[in-house]
C-alpha cells in the first residue's frame, strides 16, 4: 500500500482546527469564570505549555519515524503494552466526544435551531464524520486546510465586526488574580492542547520527514492556534468584558452576536457559524477517526472501515447523554474532562519518552537487527 502522506501545512492546519473550535468559546467562558479579564494570559501560558508537550511527543516518537504511538508501544514493551496504549488513546477520544459535541451542538442548537431535536445534530455530525473516516486520513487532512482558511476568514470577520466596541480598559488590570491562579486556569487551555498532542501521536508518522520536522511542525501548529485563539480571548475581554463572558456557556457566540458591520449588517453570526462548522465537524470527525483507529488496533484489524459504524453508535450515545442536560455538560466539561484529558494527553507522551530513553538501546538493537 502506498504510504499516506500528509504535508507539514496539513498537520499545522489539523492542529489549528482541533484546538480552535472549543478554545474560542467554551474554554474562554471557563477561563473567564476563573480569572476574569486575564483569560488571554492564561491562553498564552497554555499555548506555551502546549508547545512543550508537542515537543515531548515529538521527542518520544523521533527515533521511530514510521511508528505511531501505538506501534511504538508494541515495539517498546511488546504487544500487550501497545494494546494498553491503544486503549488509553481510545478512552481519550471517547471522552473527548463530550466537549466536542458540546461545542458543536450548543453553537447550532441554542443559537439557531432551538426547536430541532438533539438527536438530529448528533446524527448529522456523526454521518459526515463517518463519511470523512471512510474517505481516510488524507481527505481529513485536506479538509483541515480548508477549515484553516475558513478560520482565518472568521477571525478577520470578528475583528472587523467588533473593533468599534473595543475598550482596552476592560482588559485592565493585568494579572489581577496573580500568576499562580492564572497558571492553574491555563490548564483548561492545556486540555485543548491535549487533543492536539494525541492527534499528533496518531498522525506524526505520516509526515514526510517526521524525525526532522515533526517537532517543529507540531509546535508551529500550537503556536498558530494560540495566536488564532488569543485574538478571540482579547476581543471577548475587551468588547464583552470578563463579567459578561463568564455568564455564557458559548462565549464566542455572545461576541459574534454583538459584532456588526456598519448599520446595515446588524447580525452576521450565521456566516461565522457556517465558516466555523467546518472546523467543528472536523473535530467530530477526528474523534471518530481516533476511536476507530484504536478499536481497529485493539482488534488487530487491517482497515478501520468495519469499525466506523460501531464507533459511531458508541460516540453518538455518549455524546447524546452528555449534551442532553446543560448542567451535566458543564460539570463534565469543567470537572471530569480535564481529569481524563490531562493525564492521558500530557502523561502518555511523557511516559513514552521515559520508556524510550530507558529502552533506547533495545530499540536501536532491534532496528539494526531488522536491517
Amino acid at each position, binding site marked *: 500500500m502506498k504510504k499516506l502522506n500528509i504535508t507539514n501545512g496539513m498537520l499545522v492546519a489539523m492542529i489549528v482546527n482541533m484546538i480552535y473550535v472549543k478554545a474560542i468559546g467554551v474554554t474562554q467562558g471557563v477561563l473567564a469564570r476563573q480569572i476574569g479579564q486575564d483569560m488571554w494570559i492564561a491562553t498564552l501560558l497554555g499555548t506555551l505549555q502546549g508547545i512543550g508537550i508537542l515537543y515531548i511527543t515529538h521527542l518520544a516518537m523521533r527515533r521511530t519515524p514510521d511508528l505511531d504511538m501505538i506501534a511504538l508501544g508494541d515495539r517498546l514493551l511488546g504487544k500487550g503494552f501497545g494494546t494498553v496504549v491503544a486503549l488509553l488513546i481510545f478512552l481519550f477520544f471517547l471522552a473527548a466526544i463530550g466537549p466536542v459535541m458540546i461545542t458543536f451542538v450548543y453553537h447550532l442548537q441554542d443559537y*439557531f*435551531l432551538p426547536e430541532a431535536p438533539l438527536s438530529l445534530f448528533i446524527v448529522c455530525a456523526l454521518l459526515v464524520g463517518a463519511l470523512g473516516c471512510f474517505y481516510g486520513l488524507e481527505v481529513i487532512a*485536506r479538509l483541515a486546510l480548508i477549515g484553516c482558511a475558513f478560520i482565518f476568514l472568521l477571525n478577520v470577520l470578528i475583528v472587523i465586526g467588533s473593533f468599534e466596541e473595543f475598550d482596552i480598559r476592560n482588559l485592565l488590570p493585568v494579572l489581577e488574580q496573580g500568576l499562580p491562579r492564572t497558571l492553574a486556569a491555563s490548564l483548561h487551555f492545556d486540555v485543548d492542547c491535549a487533543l492536539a498532542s494525541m492527534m499528533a501521536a496518531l498522525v506524526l508518522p505520516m509526515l514526510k520527514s517526521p524525525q526532522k520536522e515533526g517537532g517543529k511542525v507540531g509546535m508551529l501548529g500550537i503556536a498558530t492556534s494560540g495566536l488564532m485563539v488569543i485574538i478571540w480571548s482579547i476581543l471577548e475581554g475587551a468588547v464583552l468584558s470578563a463579567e459578561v463572558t463568564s455568564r455564557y456557556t458559548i462565549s464566542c457566540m455572545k461576541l459574534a452576536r454583538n459584532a456588526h458591520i456598519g448599520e446595515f449588517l446588524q*447580525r452576521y453570526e450565521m456566516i461565522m457559524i457556517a465558516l466555523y462548522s467546518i472546523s467543528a465537524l472536523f473535530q467530530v470527525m477526528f474523534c471518530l477517526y481516533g476511536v476507530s483507529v484504536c478499536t481497529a488496533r485493539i482488534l488487530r484489524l487491517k482497515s478501520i472501515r468495519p469499525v466506523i459504524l460501531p464507533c459511531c453508535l458508541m460516540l453518538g450515545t455518549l455524546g447524546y447523554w452528555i449534551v442532553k442536560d446543560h448542567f451535566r455538560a458543564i460539570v463534565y466539561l469543567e470537572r471530569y474532562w480535564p481529569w481524563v484529558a490531562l493525564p492521558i494527553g500530557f502523561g502518555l507522551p511523557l511516559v513514552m519518552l521515559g520508556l524510550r530513553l530507558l529502552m533506547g538501546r533495545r530499540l536501536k538493537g532491534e532496528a539494526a537487527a531488522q536491517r
Partner: protein
Amino acid sequence: MNRLAAAAKAVLERKIAPGLADNEAAIDEVMGNCADLLKRSFLLGGDRRVPGLLVCLDGMADLGTVEAILKELLPFAEGSLKRFPDDSEVEALPNFYLSSASTHTCETVGEAIAAVISGNAVLLFEGYGSGLIANARGWKERNVEEPSTENNLRGPRDGFSESIRTNTALVRRRIRDPMLRFAAMTVGTRTQTSINIAYIGDLVKEGLVDEVKRRLGRIRIDSVLESGYIEELIEDAPLSPFNTAQSTERPDKVASALLEGRVAIFVDNTPHVLIVPTFFWQFMQAPDDYYNRYWVGTFYRFVRYIAFMISLLLPSIYVMLVSFHQEMIPTSLALTIASGREIIPFPVLLEALIMEFAFELMREAGLRMPKPIGQAVSIVGSLIIGQAAVQAGLVSPFMVIVVAMTGISSFAIPGYTSSLAIRLLRFPLLIASGLFGLLGFATMAFALLLHVLSIHSFGEPYLAPASPYRPSDQRDMLLRVPIWMMDLRPEFAQDRERMEGSQMPKAPKEGQR
C-alpha cells in the same frame, strides 16, 4: 455470436485469393449488397491486360482522387504503363505507376475491408495474392468554426471540428515542437473510432501517458459516438457529479494544457477534446484571463468565483434565512421580504423548488426548440414566470430575483459541463437547508466538500492546489498573476521551468536610450 457474425468473421480472416472473382465474392459476403459500395473493374494497361478491381465507399472516398488513380492505371491514358512488371509483386506497383501519397499492401480480406470502410481505395488484381490500399479518403466535413459553447472576446476564434486530423493539426499548428506526440488508438468494436492521445514528451507528468493508455485499452465497447463515452469510461470518480476530465472545443485550451504537462484525448467525430488530469479550478478559468491584462483577468476570475458561490449557495441561503433564521436578515430587508411574501401560498422551500424547476425547464426548452422558436419560448417563458407569477401572487418578487441571479451566475462559469454539476448539486443543498436550516446546510455543504476533497483525476487531487496546498501553483488559481511572474509550470509537470525568471519589462531610463 450469431451465425451471420460467425460467417463474416471467418471470411474476414481469409487471405486474399489470387482469383479476382473469389475476392469480390468475399467482399460481397461480408458487406452485403451495400448501396454505397463502389466496385469498378478495369483492365490494367500495357501488354498483359491484367483485370483489376477497385473497391471504395462512395462518400468516404474522394471520387476525384479515385478517378485520378484509375487514370494512371488505365491503358488509354497518356504515359500509362506499357508493360506490367510481371516478375514483381503488387508492392512494386506504386513505385512505378501510382502517384498516391500513401499506399500499402494488405494480405487479408479483413484488412482490405477495414481500409475500404475508413475511406481508402483498395486495388485488387487477377493472379496476385495481395491487395493494394491507396489513400483516397475524403469526405464532407464542417469547416473550422468558432466554438459554440466556449466564447471569448480576445483570443483565437477557431474551434475543433468533427475530424480528428483537422483537430490534431489545429494543435500542432500552435505547438511546433518535435516533442509533441500523438499516440493513436482505436476504440469501439463496431465504430472503430480513432483516438489520439496528445502530449509533449518531455513535459508530461511521468507515467501519465501509460496510465491513459492503460485506461483506454481497458475499454471494451461496441461504439464510441462522442468523447463523453470515453470520459465516463476512464474517470477516477465514476459516481461523482463532478467531471474529472475536462472537455473543450478550443484548441488554445488544449495547447495550454499540453504545455502544462497534461494529456489531451482526441476522439474522432466529435469537436470535444478531453484533457486530463483535471482540477476543479480549471472550470473557473477562461482563456481570456491570459489574453487580457492581468488586472482584468484577476478581476473577472473573482467575478466568476462569486458567480460560482451564488449559483451553488444563493437559493439555499435565501430559503434558510427566510424559513429559519429571520433574525439574520437586516431588519429593513426582512420587512421588504416579508411584505413580498405576504400572500404567497407556498412555503419558501416549495416556492424555490418550483421556481428552480421552472428555470431549468425554460433553459432546456430553449435549448431543444428549433432555433427560430427558441427565442419565442424564452421570451414568453420569462414573461410568464417573471411578471405574471408575481402578479398572480404565486411567487414572491424576491424569489424571482434569487432564481434569476442563480441562473445568470451559472451561465458565467466558463466550464459549461461543470456548471451542470453545480446546477445539480444546488438541489440537495436547497432541500437540506429548507428542511433543517443551518444544520442541514452545514452538513450538506460539508459532505459535499468532503466528497470533492476525496476525488482524484488521474492521480492528482481534484482540489489541488488549494488543498493539498501547493504554494507555487497559487499564482494561477485565485489570482492571475502577470505572465512575467508565471515562470513555473504546475507541480506535476516534468520540467517545471516555463521561462527565465525576472522578465518584468522595464522602460529604459532617461538618457540611456
